[in-house]
């Protein structure tokens, strides 16, 4: 924790940046991070967004302002993730009883279900940030979207893998072409497409908007794909957790929910770390970054 001093340093720097630039509205030139005039704490990239620039939520649309905030969130989330993982695994393995029909194998759900949920939630979040980025041209929205994608892909892969290992002893097969499995697999493909597309452009800004568009196209298609494969094939059980009640014993449910929050915290922490790395990469010519890390 030797970074705290540095952190407050960053924060005050960012603040002074904002103060010295009361109407920061210089649009970025084409091409990645090339010749930015002075240090631009460009709050928002286009004129439409500029109108809102006085509102509180645009304050953190600026990478310079968001950088220290992201650092704080990251640290907090690491702490929460580690603590909740320990608590969740303890309850899951040492407090929760054996399941009546599945025996001990059911303990895989403490990671399988959160991973499957995160895979879906992260895609939605990605689509949300992409839409925001396309609508207002905020660079930070695109960065958030990029930062989420690899973790989302990993969560989809983990839920497929753990599902296979759980399915073998319980259903009797590693893989069935079942609706949920298949649509998770397709979700994984969509993540891969997004990541590959974002990487295919030399021009970062173009890559931002192109991948944002494909994230939205995918988001429109996800429900259609889900229903088409549902109709095609289904074996997966109904949802165990529904609004208004759940069909799980309470200790098992507690463990699973604790693990879910741990996964949330982990994903947020990783995304914040990635956003900070991207800010360093993309804003490397901005002066405020000079004092950040040496």
């Amino acid at each position, binding site marked *: 924790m030797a970074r705290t001093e540095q952190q407050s340093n960053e924060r005050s720097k960012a603040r002074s940046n904002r103060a010295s630039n009361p109407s920061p509205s210089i649009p970025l030139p084409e091409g990645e991070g090339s010749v930015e005039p002075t240090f631009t704490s460009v709050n928002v990239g286009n004129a439409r967004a500029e109108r809102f620039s006085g509102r509180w939520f645009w304050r953190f649309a600026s990478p310079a302002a968001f950088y220290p905030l992201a650092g704080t969130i990251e640290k907090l989330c690491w702490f929460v993730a580690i603590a909740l993982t320990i608590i969740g695994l303890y309850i899951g393995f040492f407090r929760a009883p054996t399941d009546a029909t599945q025996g001990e194998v059911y303990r895989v759900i403490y990671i399988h279900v959160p991973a499957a949920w995160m895979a879906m939630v992260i895609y939605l979040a990605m689509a949300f940030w992409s839409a925001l980025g396309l609508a207002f041209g905020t660079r930070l929205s695109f960065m958030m979207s990029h930062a989420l994608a690899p973790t989302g892909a990993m969560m989809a892969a983990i839920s497929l893998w753990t599902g296979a290992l759980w399915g073998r002893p319980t259903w009797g097969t590693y893989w069935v072409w079942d609706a949920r499995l298949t649509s998770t697999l397709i979700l994984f493909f969509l993540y891969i497409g997004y990541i590959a597309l974002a990487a295919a452009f030399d021009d970062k800004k173009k890559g931002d908007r192109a991948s944002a568009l494909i994230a939205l196209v995918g988001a429109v298609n996800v429900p259609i794909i889900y229903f088409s494969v549902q109709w095609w094939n289904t074996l997966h059980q109904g949802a165990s957790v529904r609004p208004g009640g759940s069909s799980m*014993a309470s200790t*098992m449910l507690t463990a699973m929910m604790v693990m879910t929050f741990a996964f949330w915290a982990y994903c947020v922490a990783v995304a914040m770390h990635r956003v900070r790395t991207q800010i360093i990469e993309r804003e490397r010519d901005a002066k405020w970054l000079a004092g950040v890390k040496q």
Partner: protein
Amino acid sequence: MTIKQKRLALILGGVLLLSAATALVLFALRDNLAFFYTPSQIVSKEAPVNRTFRIGGMVEAGSVKRTGIEVAFRVTDTAQIVPVTYTGILPDLFKEGKGVVAQGTLGADGVFRAKEVLAKHDENYMPPEAQAAVDKANQARERTQKTLK
């Protein structure tokens, strides 16, 4: 035509296409699009003959008979019963009184020959004691129903 009118025409066209698509989906959903056939459907000859399909239902209690790796059991949807034969290893969750989905063909003798048997797992997770309590309650209810009849 001004630009505005053109745009309006395009949007109208799009909305028209989308509503046509919705109508088609609604039409399709009236059809029976099930993953498996129930014993009632099979008994009333709605299930396809001479081709592989899936049968779904509950394994009737007390119906499982094993001879070596050959297994015979009956699948029920509480209204009708279809006998099933299967050769191979059954999944862990395969139990009497639990859900099952079997893939195979229906013979002329009315016996379903399964090539694959998958346990259809329900969404209930509970410890053995709780399960025992639920079973007990069910049995008690059945008994009262029988005496009331």
